[in-house]
C-alpha cells in the first residue's frame, strides 16, 4: 500500500515535472523569438521587481540620435523600449527626426515637411559632437520597425497631432502593431474626435505634462474610455498634481513611465544627478516613488544600476 502510494506520488510528480518542462520550453520559445512580446506583457502587468529601461532617441551617445545604429545599440544593450521621433516628409513618408528641420542633425538643410524622402536620404547624419561626414542616413519608420521587430518595443513621439494613421499603416504592413507605443498630451476626447476607433487598434500612452489641465479628470476620462496600459508622467516638483496621480495609477495596476532627462520632468531627479551624485538619489528615488519605467539618456548606466538592484532578473538574458 505504502509502495503504491509512493508510486502514485512519483507519477504525479513526473507529470508535474513534464508540465513544467513544457511551460518553460514554451516561454523559452517566446523568449527566443519575441522579446518585445514579453516586454508588452510586463507593461500590461507591471511588477515591483522589474523596472523597464527606455532609451531616449536611441543610444545617441553611441551613434547619431534616431539612427538605426543608435536603435540597434539599444537592442544589444538589452533596453526594453526605444523612444524615437517620427515626422512626415513632403511625399508622405515617415522618417525618424526630432526637429522640424534637418539642420541640427544632418549635413543638409530644410524642413522635413518640405523635403522628399529621396532628398532626405541623400544627406548624412552628424554625430553628437556636430561632426558631419558619417555614412549614416536618416531612417524611415518602416526600416526601424523591421530591425526592432520581436526584439524591443518602440515608443513613437511626435505622432499624435498628425501622423497616427500613417504610422498605423506602417505597423500593419510590418506586423508590429503590438510593438509600438504611441503617445500624446491631448485629452481622450480630442484624440477620439481625431482618430475615433483607430485608437482601440493601437497602444496609446497618454502623457501628463505640467500644463495638463485638471490631471485627475484627464486620467479619469482616459481610464473610462481607453483604459490605457501606461501613462507617461512628468512633474516639476513633488507638490505637483501630476506627481500625486502616480500612486493612484499604481493602485490601479497601471504602468507609470517617468522621464529622467531634465529637471522639470522629474523634480530634478535626472540622469545627470545620477552621474554626479549617484543613482540612488535620482533613479532610486523615482523607483521608490512609483516609477515602473525610466526614460533615460544613459541606457547603459541605468541598466547596470537596475541589474545591481535585482530589478532586471525577470527578463535577464
Amino acid at each position: 500500500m505504502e509502495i503504491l502510494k509512493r508510486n502514485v506520488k512519483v507519477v504525479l510528480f513526473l507529470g508535474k515535472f513534464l508540465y513544467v518542462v513544457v511551460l518553460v520550453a514554451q516561454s523559452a520559445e517566446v523568449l527566443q523569438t519575441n522579446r518585445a512580446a514579453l516586454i508588452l506583457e510586463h507593461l500590461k502587468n507591471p511588477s515591483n521587481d522589474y523596472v523597464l529601461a527606455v532609451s531616449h532617441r536611441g543610444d545617441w551617445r553611441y551613434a547619431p540620435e534616431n539612427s538605426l545604429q543608435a536603435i540597434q545599440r539599444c537592442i544589444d544593450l538589452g533596453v526594453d523600449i526605444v523612444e524615437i521621433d517620427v515626422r512626415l516628409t513632403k511625399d508622405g513618408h515617415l522618417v525618424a527626426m526630432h526637429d522640424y528641420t534637418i539642420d541640427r542633425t544632418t549635413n543638409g538643410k530644410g524642413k522635413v515637411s518640405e523635403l522628399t524622402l529621396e532628398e532626405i536620404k541623400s544627406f548624412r547624419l552628424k554625430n553628437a559632437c556636430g561632426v558631419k561626414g558619417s555614412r549614416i542616413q536618416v531612417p524611415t519608420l518602416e526600416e526601424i520597425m523591421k530591425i526592432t521587430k520581436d526584439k524591443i518595443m518602440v515608443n513613437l513621439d511626435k505622432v499624435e497631432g498628425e501622423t497616427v494613421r500613417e504610422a498605423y499603416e506602417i505597423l500593419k504592413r510590418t506586423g508590429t502593431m503590438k510593438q509600438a507605443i504611441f503617445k500624446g498630451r491631448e485629452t481622450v476626447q480630442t484624440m477620439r474626435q481625431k482618430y475615433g476607433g483607430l485608437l482601440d487598434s493601437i497602444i496609446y500612452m497618454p502623457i501628463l505634462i505640467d500644463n495638463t489641465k485638471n490631471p485627475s479628470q484627464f486620467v479619469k476620462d482616459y481610464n473610462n474610455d481607453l483604459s490605457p496600459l501606461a501613462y507617461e508622467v512628468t512633474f516639476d516638483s513633488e507638490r505637483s498634481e501630476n506627481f500625486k496621480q502616480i500612486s493612484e495609477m499604481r493602485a490601479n495596476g497601471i504602468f507609470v513611465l517617468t522621464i529622467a532627462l531634465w529637471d522639470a520632468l522629474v523634480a530634478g531627479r535626472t540622469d545627470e544627478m545620477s552621474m554626479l551624485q549617484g543613482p540612488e538619489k535620482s533613479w532610486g528615488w523615482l523607483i521608490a516613488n512609483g516609477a515602473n519605467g525610466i526614460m533615460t539618456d544613459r541606457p547603459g548606466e541605468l541598466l547596470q544600476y537596475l541589474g545591481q538592484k535585482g530589478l532586471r532578473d525577470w527578463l535577464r538574458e
Partner: protein
Amino acid sequence: MKLHSFVSCIVLVVISGACRQESVNGAKYGEEVFLEEKTEKSISIDDLIANLKDSRNDEVIVVAHRGDWRNAPENSLQAIENCIKMGVDMVEIDVRETKDGKLILMHDETIDRTTTGTGKVTDLTWEYLQTLYLRDGIGHKTPHRIPTLKEALELCKGKILVNLDKSYPIFDKCFKVVEETDTKQQVVIKGAIPYEQVKEEFGTYLDKVFFMPIVRLNHPNSKSIVNDYLNQLQPVAFEFTVPQDTIKMIEYFDDIRIQGSSVSVNSLWPRHNGGHDDEKAALHPSVYDWFIENHIDIIQTDRPQLLLDYLRKKNLHN
C-alpha cells in the same frame, strides 16, 4: 527531495540553453556584441611623456578628441576627467580667446551649438560666458560650465598629455597659462605648415612644448616636408592624414619611427585613415588592426573606450 533538485536542474538547463540562444540571436552583425568596458587605470605623467618620446616601442598612445564627448559635454572639465579615469593618454581640447582676453575651451567660433548662450567668442566677455551652461550631444542644458584654459590645465596637470587645438595663433597668451600652471612638459601643439614657417612663427616655443607637424599624404611634396622636419627639428611625432590606404608614403612610416619621430594618424573620419575609421570600428573593432599593422604610435579617436579596450586586449596599451 531528490526529484525536486532534479527538476530544478533540468529547468535551469533549459532556461540557460534558451538564454544562450537568445544572446546569440541578439547580436545583429553575426558577431559578439561589443560592450565597452568601464575601466579605471592610471599611469604616471612621466611614463606618458617617456612613451610619447619613444617612437620605437609598441605601446600605442590614445588621444581623445574634444575629451570624452559622448558621456559629458565636449570640451568640459567632466569630459577631461572621464578621459583621465579611462586611462586615455592625451586629451585634445580647443582654445579660444574671449573679447576681454580670457582663454576658454570652445570648439566653434560661436557658442551657439554647445552652450545656453549665443554669439561669437570674440564678441563676448568672460563675465557673460561664466553665467552659461554647456549643452550635451542632443542640445540639452547640463549642469556643466564653460571651462577656462587654466582650469583645464590644472585638471590635466600630472595626469594626462594635452593637445591644445586652435591655440597656435594665440600661443603667446596660452603659453603664459601653461607656465603659470607648470604644465609645459605635457603640452602638444600641432600645425599643418612646413618647417621654415614654424621656425619663424613658433621658434621660441619649439624647445619648450612638443610640436607635432601635420602632413597630408596626398600633398605632392609630403615626403620633402617630412624630411625637412626630420633633418632640422626631429619632432616628437608627425600626424599624417591618409586619404587612401594605398598611398605609398605609408611604407615610409617605419623609417620615420626608426629616425626617432612617432607616427600619429586619426581614426576620427574616413579621410584621415583611408576608411579605417571609428564609425566602422564601432561595428567591428578589428578595423583598428590597420593602425596596428602599420605601427601607428598615436591614434586620435572619437571612441576612446572602444579603442582602449581593443588595444588592451592586444597588449598594446597599459
